[in-house]
């Protein structure tokens, strides 16, 4: 199974051990699915991890280490060129295009993207975790 994890899912995983995102992250490290990322994704993750409200929970060193882990361990895909406009937030379009290009599920907790589940293979972290659990 291949999946693109919205950077917000990855950040959420770092912030709370209790939730589905954290369980998904552990299952990726255990090799239960292939995490697909193009350069734009860790780049956005790095920017977001520098957000002032996050730096009290995640130090700059830990943030850099996690971004490096993603770059080293994810299946690297090319950045989609000129992704079509689909989300009400233009910044989400590269994630949709990446998932489509790589024939992967897009896992997101962002309502902008979850509003598009009738048109694209987008699932919540909980639904994706349930899929992984069912495959056990």
């Amino acid at each position, binding site marked *: 199974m291949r999946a693109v994890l919205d950077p917000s899912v990855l*950040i959420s995983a770092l912030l709370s051990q209790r939730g*589905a995102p954290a369980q998904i992250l552990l299952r990726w490290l255990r090799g239960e699915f292939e995490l697909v990322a193009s350069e734009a994704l860790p780049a956005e993750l790095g920017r*977001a991890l520098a957000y002032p409200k996050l730096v009290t929970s995640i130090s700059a060193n830990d943030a850099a280490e996690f971004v490096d*882990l993603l770059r080293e361990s994810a299946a690297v895909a090319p950045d989609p060129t000129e992704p079509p406009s689909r989300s009400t937030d*233009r910044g989400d379009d590269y994630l949709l295009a990446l998932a489509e290009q790589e024939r992967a599920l897009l896992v997101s907790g962002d309502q902008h993207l979850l509003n598009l589940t009738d048109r694209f293979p987008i699932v919540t972290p909980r639904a994706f975790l349930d899929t992984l659990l069912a495959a056990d």
Partner: protein
Amino acid sequence: MAKVRTTLTIDDVVLRAVKVRGARTGKGDSHVIEEALRRDLGLDLLDRLWQADDLSEAEAMELAVEAQHETRPSH
């Protein structure tokens, strides 16, 4: 966490370095190798971050989405 026995084939220079580290720190080969792997695989990082974790899943997602959107170049 359960421990399992395994067999690895590694470079002899690496194994010597493991033994030197073990001798200097008073740890066994398995311990030194596991520590190195946990660091390299990101497991130590997650343990470190999750020690301070006090957010619910919903709170964490809300903050994560906010961080993502507020730091986008177009914002």
